């Protein structure tokens, strides 16, 4: 079973995302900010990380930079999932090592189609 870490300060979003990922057969962990996400990654590196941008304590971009510096931090596929929906943010995210980018609001179709393209889920 593949694992994913859902990082978002909104419990509602984490719940929605969990339903989507569980339906795709992922084992899900949750974190409510970048700091907690890093701690989770130190314990066990997930296959996929769904990452919000704006969060208290440590935001998504700071988390991503820190993650990619970890010894095995290149192993996870990072999918940003944020209300930031302008080209500048998208380019920044990709330049800093994100693998995909979802603009909120999102639904199961969007998540699934992105995971298919990434080769993580079968079409």
């Amino acid at each position, binding site marked *: 079973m593949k694992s994913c870490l859902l990082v978002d300060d909104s419990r509602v979003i984490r719940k929605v995302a969990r339903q989507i990922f569980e339906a795709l057969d992922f084992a899900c962990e949750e974190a409510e900010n970048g700091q907690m996400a890093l701690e989770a990654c130190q314990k066990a590196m997930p296959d996929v990380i769904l990452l919000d941008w704006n969060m208290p304590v440590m935001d998504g971009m700071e988390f991503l930079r820190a993650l990619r510096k970890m010894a095995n931090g290149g192993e996870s596929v990072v999918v940003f999932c944020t209300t930031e929906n*302008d080209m500048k943010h998208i*380019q920044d995210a990709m330049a800093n090592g994100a693998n*995909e980018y979802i603009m909120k609001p999102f639904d199961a179709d969007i998540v699934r189609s992105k995971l298919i*393209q990434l080769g993580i889920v079968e*079409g």
Partner: protein
Amino acid sequence: MKPEDFDLFSSLVKQRSGLVLSKDKSYLLESRLIPVARKYNLKTLEELAQLVRTKRDEAILHAITEAMTTNESFFFRDTKPFDQFKKLLLPELLRTRAAKKQFRIWSSASSSGQEAYSLAMICAEEAAKLQGWKIDILGTDISTEMVERAKSGIYSQFEVQRGLPIALLMKCFSQIGTDKWQLKEELRRMVQYREGNLLTDFGPIGVFDVIYCRNVLIYFDQPTKTRVLEAMSHVLAPDGVLFLGGAETVLGISDKFKPLENERGVYVLANRPDTGMLPKGRGTGVAPPVGSSVFTGTSSSASISA
């Protein structure tokens, strides 16, 4: 709705577009046609039916037909048909059309344009290999509104996320306003869209090397499917390739086409020459296990026992 009105509308739509509306779709007919009635300042569908009976106004008949179409589409829908185009077909087109340096693709129920534009994006990505080539991509649809949307190349934030990798969004689109995205002009210019009806408009269209006819035959009854596939067989190059949707097949419907071995959703002419694109055994797919029955015959009368 009165049964005679339902019959009037459904036979009109069937005759003009091929769409079959069973009796249980009466709610759908109502919800889609009420806005049409409003547009013509009519209060009820009864009045609309009356107008259709008394005055066979082309604009109204078209509006009714158009309102009944289902236009859902995604970029790179189902992934596979576009992978197959890129990895399997494009190299073959490059090889077999090297003398003419030209090929033509038809997205035959193009809806809001995602299918044809996905193919344009693939060709643009392979631009280095296609230097000096002339590539025609034509998108046709019965819906005036969809053809206009396709031409505009403007999509909502939702639409550009369904099936479109972020890398292609960054490369091929510009953002307009806060939540709309427009395909760049150089890509829009690669595709021509126009209105076209699969039941009637085959005459002046020319011959295509690749035809996508996806997620439209499902709405037709068997005789209509047979008729459309027959017409397609006349506008497909002898070694050309036809893509159908995931829930569509030629099996038991048309003997003009046969499935391409090992490549789901891909069809070739039943009487195709042995040379040309993708001759037998050139598929990239995994060979089926011994003993499984796949179509290997070359004559159009060969039977399938899958």
